[in-house]
Every structure is written in C-alpha cells, then in structure tokens.
C-alpha cells in the first residue's frame, strides 16, 4: 500500500514537471530550444512509463519504455539533420537567387 502511494506521488510530481517542459517548448525562441525540451519531455515520460510498469505489475511496459527511448533519440537526430538541411538550402537560395534550385525533396545536410 505504501508503494502505491509513493508511485502516485512520483507520477503527480513528474506530470507537473512535464508541464513546465511543455511551457519551455512553447516559449523557446529557437528551434534548438524546442528540440532540447522535447528531449527532456521524452526522458520524463520514460520515468513515468517505468513507474506505471511497477505500479500495475506489468513487466512488458518496460519494453515499451525501451522502444520509446530509441524512438525519441531517433526523432532528435533526424529532426536536427532536417533543420540543418533546410537552413543550408535557404542560404544557398539567398546566395544565388538566379539559379532556380527546385530539385524536389530536401537536402540531407551531410547525413
């Protein structure tokens, strides 16, 4: 019973912190700010899923947590590569506006 109360308290505190992270993600003036706070939110959600796995006595939820960790890492890496590619394309277009660089798709930015 004591364990149950501890899990509930931890979940509530983590939810409040998650809300603070969300505020940072909305406020963040730059793209890197938002990506960083999304990464933080992923970390906190991982802890929440692990707490739920122990609270509900369902071991398979920890597997979900592992997959979540992998996907959030992949999301951060891919999104930052995509933004670097978009920025390079924009700068190229500003440097020589005569040549129409309409090739379709975005450059991979040294992926």
């Amino acid at each position, binding site marked *: 019973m*004591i*364990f149950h109360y*501890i899990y509930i308290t*931890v979940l509530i*505190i*983590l939810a409040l*912190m998650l809300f*603070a*992270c969300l505020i*940072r993600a909305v406020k*963040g003036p*730059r*793209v*890197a*700010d938002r*990506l*960083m*706070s999304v*990464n*933080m939110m992923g*970390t*906190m959600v*991982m*802890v929440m899923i*692990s*707490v739920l*796995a*122990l609270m509900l006595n369902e*071991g398979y939820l*920890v*597997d979900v*947590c*592992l997959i979540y*960790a*992998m996907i959030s*890492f992949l999301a*951060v*890496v891919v999104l*930052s*590569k995509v*933004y*670097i590619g978009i*920025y*390079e394309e924009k700068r190229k277009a500003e440097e020589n506006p005569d040549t129409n660089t309409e090739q379709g798709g975005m450059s991979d930015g040294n992926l």
Partner: protein
Amino acid sequence: MGIFDWIRLIIGSAFLICGLVIFFTEIFGVFHLNYVLNRMHAAAMGDTLGISSCLIGLMFFSGLNFTTLKLMLIVCFLWFTSPVSSHVVARLEVATNDNLDAHCLIYDDVKDLEAELAEADNAAAETDKTTGGEVS
C-alpha cells in the same frame, strides 16, 4: 512487511527523491539560463543522472527479476545516446545561428585558441618565477 522490505522501501525512495530533485534542478536551469547552449548543459544532466537515479530507485522497488534487467538496459542505452543527441542539437544551433558571436567567443581555427592558451601559460609561469625569486 518485514525488515527487509522496509530497508528496500527506504533505499528506493531515497534514490527516487534524488532523481526528482535532479529533474527539478534541470527545469530550474532550463528556465534560469538565457541561451540554448547554456540551457543544454542543464538539460543533459537530467537525461543521464536524473533518469539513472530514478530507475535505480525503481530497481530497488522491483527486486531481482527481468524488469530490473530491462531498467538497467534503459539506463545504459541513455548513457550512450544522451551525449550524442546533445551534440547533434548543439551542432544544429551552431550551424543555423547567424550571429553566434553575440553569445560566445568563436575562434576560426583551433590553433589560435591553442596559441593563446600557451601564451597565457607562459605568462603565468613567468610571473610565478619572478614572485618565487623575490620570496627566496
């Protein structure tokens, strides 16, 4: 509940509270610092130390079974991936910010920085020598 269960409860709760305090510090730092490359420092702390102490506390609660092993696997995975993702986000910031000089000092070449550091070292050594000579 036996005495063993009480010990497990106390140690696990201590680790969990430690992790939550580290998460709170992370959020405080993220709101307190005023540039992305500074904020990233605070955010990376929670990604590695915060989640590892939370999950170690949960391992104590869980006991010896496969769930503990999986939690350990998550901690190891995050220790490997968190520095990589921080590095990638920092590269994004450096690549896309046009006036980075307003926020930090930039050297065009690493050799400039090395030369400056060597000069500072030499100056410090010389002052050391002169003061040492005066004392002796």
